[in-house]
């Protein structure tokens, strides 16, 4: 399955993802700039903040418990489509998902 990351400057990068991996993990494994994932996915740091593309918000679903508390501390603007990418696990329905990246994570 595939994920397309769109950087703050509009640059698009498409990468291969494995089912069950998080969007954060996939970004880090593929050297996608704009996702740090400092805490490795333990929901401690808010450095994997992303905006889910409008066409995919329904398939992705809402925030997990505790996510909004961390997003309050994110470095870039928080929008209704904001998620922590460590909390989005890849599954068949998300194949082809488009993820927009914020200007900064720290």
């Amino acid at each position, binding site marked *: 399955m595939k994920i397309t990351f769109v950087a703050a400057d509009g640059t698009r990068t498409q990468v291969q993802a494995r089912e069950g991996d998080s969007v954060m993990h996939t970004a880090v494994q593929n050297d996608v700039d704009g996702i740090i994932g*400092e*805490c*490795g*996915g*333990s929901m401690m*740091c808010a450095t994997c903040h992303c905006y889910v593309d409008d066409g995919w918000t329904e398939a992705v679903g809402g925030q997990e418990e505790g996510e909004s*508390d961390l997003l309050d*501390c994110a470095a870039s603007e928080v929008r209704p489509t904001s998620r922590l990418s460590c909390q989005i696990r890849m599954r068949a329905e998300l194949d082809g998902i488009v993820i927009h990246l914020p200007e900064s994570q*720290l």
Partner: protein
Amino acid sequence: MSLDTPALPRSGLDPFSTDFFDDPYPEHEKLREAGPVVWLERYGVHAVARHAEVHRVLNDWATFCSSRGVGLQDFSRETPWRQPSLVLETDPPEHDRARKVLARVLSPLTMRELRDGFAAAAEALVAGLVGREIDGIADLAQAFPLSVFPDRIGLARQGREHLLPYAGLAFNAFGPDNALRREAMARAAPHVAWVTEQCRRGNLSPDGLGARIHAAADAGEVTPEEAVLLVRSLLTAGIDTTVNGIGAALYCLARFPNQFQALRADPKQARNAFEEAVRLESPVQTFFRTTTRAVELGGAILPEGAKVLMFLASANRDPRRWDRPDEYDIARRTSGHVGFGSGIHMCVGQLIARLEGEVVLEALARHAAAIEIAGPPVRSYNNTLRGLARLPLRIR
């Protein structure tokens, strides 16, 4: 054909001996190459030293539990040396309630509040060290955390010299009943008495982080007795670990001068430079888990009640996971290292540790032209923590 599971690779290694501490890396490699799970004959425990298995054990708390102790002792058979920690030595759901309180007190929001003060303190301390020969451990790795952390917790000024010995004791206690543990226990009483007393609400300044934990008891999130134990967690795990983390970063930057020059060229890399030092040196070397059921791990079948020793430091240098694993590279993508653990028990103080490391390295990058080793480093021995007792440095 036998139905028995294949015999596990065995090792006679004592991973709590000073010989091993002097140079653990060849032994880590042997363990990793022996197989995904190795039987340690000396202590009768299973060991994992590859990144994949360490990560799996850390992330499956239901099978690999913490409530039976994260040291060699099995709390279901032996009496712990102190009342168990409410976060480190518990499983969900009890764990989550206590963790939530600590996570909020040490949240990114709190870090914003602390950042400017910590940065100014680091600037002032480091500026005074330039042009001198110093002991990187006493004069910087210890001096900085001790100058900011106890104040922010709200600790009394008197008696703070107990903090490092208490932490050393707690981390030695995870190991076997060896000389390190026995000597620490023999000297424990005054340190335990002081720390226990300081965790009480009346002894903490009302504007510190310790008081915020007690405030969670007012809100009914934890009991007043639990709040005392959560403050103890801050004091146990909040200082010596950070000291060793900063010490590790200084040792790395002194041994890899081109990396210090890269940091000087871009001081904003300070945070990742600290993170990479935590990966490479792994101030917390090992932790145990205990199986709650029979489980297959790396092709081996572990019975219920098996102690599993995780070599975090070895996972952080596993060539299966890391490119050039033994090199210090401040631009490395460090996400996924297990120096702070992983999963639900991952270091709850990781943000304050990173903040302290970052501001010290950024100050060095701005003030110092070079960091050189000025004499032989002296290792400090502990059953769990890796670090130096002395690190003679010349700060130019």
